[in-house]
């Protein structure tokens, strides 16, 4: 379909762990790598290690459906996701690395009068927050994406959609490699196959981690482990309001260009785009029960495909090439948890649930600031862990209840 650049044999330096670092980031996914990069770039902190228990970006960073948008309902969310979107817009030049960011627009379909009201409200909220947003009627939806079935005969007809033209997709593994290379070039140590098995503490303060490759001291340990955050937090006695679930996605065989944008539907639970090589990329909702198994149930996929074929009759003859699952960390208000933990020397970045990929550069920027200053960046200040004590939730189920 379109050109996909060749990769060099080695993109980043593989490092042996040193005894001690200023900052140890636990989790070598997109967020951890972006955080390391911005620690070096924005704050001059290069004595940094990124520890990854598997291979680099082999977790959710390679399993998400690559959708990027910032049209969230609440100002706090729009703030951090729009910051991310602005960074996405110049990220390829910033990293000097192809990431295939394509601003092909994102449609969020409405299938009921209530969804129409919610969508219109969100468009107005987005405009007030400086986020590009439009409300489209069904005929305008068909103009943006001609393969969407806008017939009123559908069981859940398309009654309209919100549209964010600046939204789109990027090639997620290239994003990880781009951040890894740029961070590595600035002096960050990227250490794969290094699983954290415990924390070293002195007088309550976290002073390092125990790993499968030895003990590593740190002034600050910054968790960035998505679905495995609870496992790490349990080691240090920190209770975090997260539940881990499997989230599935799939790709079809390669097709000629048929799908020009990104379409998401909360009501029928599917979201789909067409990747650069030509495969349709579709995501489902989470499997209901807690899970650390990177695979989900077939009936969830079946339901997702039924929804996809009803919305896109042209997909009926496509074949499923591959399905997979990732472990997502869902918080009670569908918003992330970022910042201080109440334990000296330990920072947290988690709770992005089903939508963390789009935030990658934005949270890297803000988490790096939080680590460097020991205080939250203004854009992640609303997302503290203690909001579950104060009650100041950022209830994003309106924009994020479906996997995204």
């Amino acid at each position: 379909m379109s050109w996909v650049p060749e990769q060099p044999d080695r993109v980043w330096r593989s490092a042996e762990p040193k005894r001690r670092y200023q900052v140890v980031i636990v989790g070598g996914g997109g967020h951890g790598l972006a955080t390391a990069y911005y620690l070096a770039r924005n704050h001059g902190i290069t004595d940094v290690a990124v520890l990854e228990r598997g291979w680099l970006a082999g977790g959710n960073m390679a399993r998400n459906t690559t959708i990027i948008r910032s049209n969230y309902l609440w100002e706090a969310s729009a703030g951090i996701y729009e910051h991310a979107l602005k960074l996405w817009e110049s990220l390829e030049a910033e990293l000097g690395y192809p990431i295939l960011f394509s601003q092909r627009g994102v449609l969020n379909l409405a299938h009921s009068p209530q969804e129409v009201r919610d969508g219109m409200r969100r468009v107005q909220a987005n405009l007030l927050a400086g986020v590009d947003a439009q409300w489209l009627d069904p005929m305008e939806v068909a103009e943006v994406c001609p393969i969407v079935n806008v017939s009123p005969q559908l069981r859940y007809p398309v009654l309209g959609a919100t549209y964010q033209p600046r939204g789109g997709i990027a090639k997620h593994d290239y994003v990880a490699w781009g951040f890894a290379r740029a961070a590595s070039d600035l002096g960050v140590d990227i250490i794969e196959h290094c699983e954290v098995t415990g924390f070293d503490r002195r007088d309550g303060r976290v002073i390092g981690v125990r790993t499968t490759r030895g003990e590593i001291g740190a002034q600050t340990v910054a968790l960035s482990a998505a679905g495995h955050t609870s496992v790490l937090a349990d080691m240090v006695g920190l209770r975090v309001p997260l539940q881990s679930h499997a989230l599935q996605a799939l790709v079809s065989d390669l097709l000629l260009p048929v799908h020009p944008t990104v379409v998401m539907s909360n009501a029928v639970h599917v979201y789909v785009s067409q990747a650069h090589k030509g495969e349709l990329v579709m995501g489902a909702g989470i499997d209901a029960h807690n899970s650390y198994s990177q695979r989900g149930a077939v009936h969830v996929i079946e339901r997702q495909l039924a929804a996809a074929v009803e919305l896109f009759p042209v997909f009926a003859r496509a074949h499923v090439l591959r399905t997979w699952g990732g472990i997502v960390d869902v918080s009670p208000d569908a918003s992330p948890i970022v910042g201080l933990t109440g334990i000296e020397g330990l920072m947290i970045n988690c709770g992005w649930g089903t939508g963390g990929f789009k935030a990658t550069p934005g949270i890297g920027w803000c988490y790096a600031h939080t680590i460097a200053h020991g205080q939250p960046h203004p854009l992640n200040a609303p997302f503290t862990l203690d909001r579950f004590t104060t009650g100041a939730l950022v209830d994003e189920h309106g924009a994020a209840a479906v996997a995204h």
Partner: protein
Amino acid sequence: MMIITCPWCGPRNETEFHYGGEAGVAYPADPGVLSDEEWGRFLFVRSNPKGVLHERWSHNAGCRRWFSVHRDTVTHEVGPAR
């Protein structure tokens, strides 16, 4: 697809059941005496182990009764409440 054994109806497909999360979370005896932190913990924090979780399911496409099982969150192996 998991097969879950309902104590009353026997082994059935996962699709017949509704998930109820962690088992054994009691409503506080006297909520008024809890601190904000304790109340927040009761409302929002549940166990999230990588391993065996004691949890609630409802057989909502069958007898509609609630019951508890122990299920491994990695292997998805389901055993009866112990």
